């Protein structure tokens, strides 16, 4: 493990709830890890704790085997071997690209070659003399990345690095930045609130909510086997349905039918226990033979896909189910449709 956090807690004076609450996780060398969560969940604070811009109230942080922050030890940011890319890039406006990248290098003689090498890596070798304001958003981003990488840090911390870019550039920069990070064998921790971004770039995602870790795992695990209702609804879209565990201990009986959940989250539950299951909108199909009937409440055309909300009224309850349909299919509000659920794609989640 190149970075290990155990029970890291941060209280800000004036706030009752800790911004970061007993967070523990480890990052392996060369991994790209994403801290994912809604705004105010403590992910940026956690990043600043790792960088050394904040002191933890409790717990400890270990980087490359060295305890950098705990109750009785403190190593300042510049000695932690971390590089940081800020949300607004924080480039020095009065320094050229070259000077920005070389800002933290102490050895001025050897640094020239290193600066060029790093700028080469990010593809800006031709822009060394330019000033930040003369560069595009994507280029500024890459200068910030070069500045973070130039000192060969143990870990690069990136705080919402793509949130200032427009949609089309964001996609490209995501690919570029992850490629550069992988090429330089750096370990990286991203902070983002964009679940799509987290899923596409990470080796490991840590989902946070209200200062706590909700779930950690690979993108596939996070999406397919959400452990909590929060993860199920925050990462991707989800239909949450209450039910109880059947006598076999695996299947879940709901108003919409009985589904077999083979995932571990339902294990340890006794038959008859109440659980919630998550059904992804793409596990629902509009199908004339479908067993569930409802009325289309809303149609949201998104180009590559159409989301429809189907109101299913059963004896006691009404469900509004989100269903992905092929946009070629013309569906209008008020249409009566039948839908089918693919039972294998259902995950049971803890409440």
């Amino acid at each position, binding site marked *: 493990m190149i970075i290990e956090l155990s029970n890291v807690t941060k209280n800000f004076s004036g706030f009752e709830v800790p911004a970061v609450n007993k967070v523990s996780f480890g990052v392996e060398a060369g991994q790209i890890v994403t801290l994912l969560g809604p705004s105010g969940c403590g992910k940026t604070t956690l990043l600043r704790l790792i960088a050394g811009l904040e002191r933890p109230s409790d717990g400890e942080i270990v980087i490359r085997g060295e305890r950098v922050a705990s109750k009785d030890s403190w190593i300042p940011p510049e000695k932690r071997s971390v590089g940081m890319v800020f949300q607004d890039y924080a480039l*020095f406006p009065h320094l050229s690209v070259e000077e920005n990248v070389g*800002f933290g290098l102490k050895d001025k003689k050897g640094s020239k070659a290193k600066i060029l090498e790093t700028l080469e890596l990010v593809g800006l070798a031709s822009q060394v003399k330019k000033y930040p304001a003369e560069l595009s958003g994507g280029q500024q981003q890459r200068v910030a990345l070069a500045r973070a990488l130039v000192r060969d840090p143990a870990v690069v911390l990136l705080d919402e690095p793509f949130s200032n870019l427009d949609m089309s550039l964001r996609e490209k920069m995501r690919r570029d930045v992850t490629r550069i990070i992988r090429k330089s064998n750096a370990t990286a921790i991203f902070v983002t609130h964009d679940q799509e971004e987290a899923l596409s770039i990470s080796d490991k995602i840590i989902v946070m909510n209200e200062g706590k870790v909700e779930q950690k795992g690979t993108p596939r695990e996070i999406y397919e086997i959400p452990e909590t209702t929060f993860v199920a609804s925050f990462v991707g879209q989800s239909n949450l349905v209450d039910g109880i565990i059947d006598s076999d201990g695996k299947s879940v009986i709901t108003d919409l039918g009985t589904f077999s959940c083979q995932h571990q989250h339902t294990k340890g539950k006794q038959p008859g226990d109440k659980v919630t299951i998550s059904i992804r909108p793409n596990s629902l199909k509009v199908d004339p033979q479908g067993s569930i009937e409802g009325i289309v409440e809303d149609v949201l055309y998104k180009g590559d896909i159409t989301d429809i909300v189907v109101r299913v009224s059963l004896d006691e309850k009404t469900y509004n189910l989100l269903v992905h349909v092929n946009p070629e299919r013309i569906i209008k509000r008020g249409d009566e449709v039948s839908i089918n659920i693919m039972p294998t794609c259902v995950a049971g989640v803890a409440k």
Partner: protein
Amino acid sequence: MKAESQITVDYNGNKQRYISAALSAVFMGLGQLFNKQYIKGSIFILYTLSLLFTTVDKFASSLKGLVTLGTTPIEDHSLFLMIEGIVAAFLLLVIIGIHLFNVWDAYKNGQKIDLGEEVPSLKGSIKNLTDNFSAYLYIGPGMLMMLVSVIFPIIFTVLIAFTNYNINNLPPGNIISWVGFRNFTDLIHLASWRATFVRVFSWTVVWAVLSTFMSYATGLFLAIVLNNPKIKFRHIFRTVMMISWAIPGFISMLIWRGLLNVRFGHINRMLTSIGFEAIPWLNEAMWARVSALGVNLWLSFPFTMAVCLGLLQSIPGELYEAATVDGATGLQKFKSITLPLVLKQLAPLLIMQFAMQFNNFGIIYLLNNGGPARFGAAGNAGDTDILISWVYKLTLEVMRFDYAAAVSILIFFMVGGFSIWQFVRTKSFKEEELVQ
């Protein structure tokens, strides 16, 4: 219709516009008559005739007065003749402007005839005029005010600098005459004037540079200190520091004058009561200069502090964090982030401040009246006198209006030249959008 207009073009060629313009140039209104705009042409002709019959001799005498500045003392007052002459010259410019407009109008309408278009009637012409020239009508009063209150006095001063209007030559008893550049050369060639001019000029430069620099150094230092969140009660300190800015400057200057009085001032009383010798704050050249600089600093740093505080708060905190992660110490952060970013934004203000201090008449005059006085100095220039306060003495104390005007022009060129040079040199204007 189209064929008809084609024929008209062929018939007239391109000549109408040139002929009518030439006619109008020779005598206003003729071109308009040639363009068959009879009413407009008649108005122009009437206007010209009335000018010719009523004002030609007045113009001639006024302009002649401007050139000769009078011939018989008592009867002719040179200054009035000069002012009349300036006004006449301005009116002449207006008349020339109207004449050019008249030629342009004849040309435009001639062109319309050439192209076979219809020439507007009088009603149309008036509508045209109000449509296109109403903007001038609105700014007219403002321009006139500017002319009377700004431009005329400046021209008057500039003209005085080329005359011998001084205590030996006071109208109406004497006739002032034009002397060319003699006032300027006198300031260089006459030994006593040269010595005084050089002394006052050098002190002015030292004064402007030092007071600007001190004000900014102090303001920036205090702003940085007060911007530090670790300082307790910094809002109270900030407010207290602003007080000297809030009190009307001339009152505090007069109070300082009292405080610094060598015999009765509180500062010297305090010094003597604890065993020091009294310091001649306002009575010895060096101390008087120190006092002037000190009091000026006291008056001016709150403004620069306020500006610097604003600038400091506009520097994003992320920059400092980025520098921290990169291992910059506090001093390095100040040197490579705070100072360059603040100075870049301050540059235009520094220039303004310099120009203001260069001409800071108020403090020099009110604190010490330019004193201590110096025996034998040309034009009564005291030891703390700067150019502008010397100009004041030159006019009101020794009545060397000619030299005063010449020095004023020199000040204008120095401050103006310096400002332009600085504005061009500091990139803050070129790269304004880059810094933000």
